[in-house]
């Protein structure tokens, strides 16, 4: 079992989550009509043996999408932050000092103001 430290809910088993996909790339802008850019974003993957940036959906928890840095060979998880840009910013402010000790980052994370506060509260372990 992987154990994922959800910034909102705490340390949880990975079968509470749904793995979404590689989170390292950016999709082209919607008005971009360059087929090659779409081809690369939709179909090509770096597929590293080592650190991998990926998105997990906390389906059976806070339902937030989380960006996880995980080693694909050892399965060690180095960091878990919210994927959404608004929440990510809130996280990164307080996470700067926590980068060396990602496991304790959760404790210093400010509660996102606009989060579905009820489910976040209920899910908090």
């Amino acid at each position, binding site marked *: 079992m992987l154990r994922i430290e959800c910034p909102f809910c705490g340390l949880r088993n990975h079968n509470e989550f749904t793995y979404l*996909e590689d989170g390292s790339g950016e999709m082209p802008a919607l008005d971009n009509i360059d087929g090659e850019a779409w081809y690369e974003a939709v179909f090509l*993957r770096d597929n590293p043996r080592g650190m991998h940036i990926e998105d997990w959906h906390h389906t059976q928890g806070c339902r937030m999408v989380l960006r996880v840095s995980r080693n*694909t060979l050892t399965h060690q998880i180095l960091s878990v932050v919210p994927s959404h840009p608004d929440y990510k910013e809130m996280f990164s402010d307080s996470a700067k000092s926590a980068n060396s000790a990602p496991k304790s980052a959760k404790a210093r994370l400010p509660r996102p103001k606009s989060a579905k506060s009820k489910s976040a509260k209920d899910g908090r372990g």
Partner: protein
Amino acid sequence: MDGKARVKRYSALRIIKEGLSGHKGWQPAWRDATPKPAYDVIVIGGGGHGLATAYYLASIHGIKNVALLEKGWIGGGNSGRNTTIVRSNYSIEGNTAFYEHSLKLWEGLSQELNYNVMFSQRGHLSLFFTPGQRDALARRYNIMRLNGIDGEFLNRDQVQKMVPHLNYSEDSRFPIMGGFLQPRAGTARHDAVNWGYARAASALGVDIIQNCEVTGFIHEGGKIQGVETNRGEIRAEKIGMAVAGSTSLLAKMAGLGKLPIESHKLQAFVSEPIKPFLDTVLVYSAYNGHFYISQSDKGGMVFGGDLDGYNSYAQRGNLPIYTDVAGCAMNVMPALGRVKILRQWAGIMDMSMDGSPFIAKTDIDGLYLNAGWCYGGFKAIPGSGWCFAHTIANDAPHEINSPLTLDRFRQGRQIDESGHGPFPKAH
């Protein structure tokens, strides 16, 4: 041909002769070769696909100066980690002809290789549980019959007659409605396939070089000219890669850049050996469940389910799928409940973006790619080797593998059998 002459054929007469002379005349099945500085063709990857490629290069195309490089031992990767199911019940153009060609090669393989690969056409029975599944399988049945592939549609009574010891109770959570059978499908002995191809290829002069890991590629003038390995530089103007699981790593090394592939792990399980219990390959797929099971000749129940679901290069499985597979087993075949699981392991799958493989030339002259087998590579071994050898020998794909290009995503020609779109974990 001199290589061929040195290898004695296996036969009943040979066994009697050896029996009378104290079994002192047997020889190793293949030569454990040391690398020469140069070859006509290098095949990277000593699994079933690589070994079959080397064999067909030598036997059909007459290219016998071939090196097969394997970083560990032959058949030690996914070829030795699968559930040994062989079938050709596909319905999308590009897959149908290819897998049927492979199944036909399986049917004559033991004779061709003079090695018993224990191919057993015990049938492959996919159960259905909902009207939707029934309609989807009926559609597949019709497509297969139109393509000249065998199939039979069974109602619940016919399934019960064929496999009486499933859960047929009316209050079962997912009652069995019927099944779709491919009678010519079945299982084979995975190690025997590797060893059979290795022996036959070696007899034709192919050098099988184990413990030889590729660490780099030699490019000269925009063409591939050889590889660097932990056993020195080996040169060849044509190089074929058949390293499913590690394709992205080797492709990056070769300069191919990113590929439409993710590496995922798939688990397989085997139980303690029991008396003959199941004489077909059974597939269960009620709602989101996924479970397939057969019995090996040794008696072990061999079974598996879905991918673990996240990118991984670790050859070990995780608990949620373990419980998922056990739950499916108990639902469809409760009699298994007291059987102990003996071993469980995982292999690394090349999951492609449409669930279909690649047997193709690459953008680099002289470099050929065989990859993206998702979790259906075992059944494809003979067909894949056959097509890949043709592609390498002629520098052009055979008609059968011409749709299996790397470029099909750029052109919008995906071969998406399951219709899941560009999500490798879903195929």
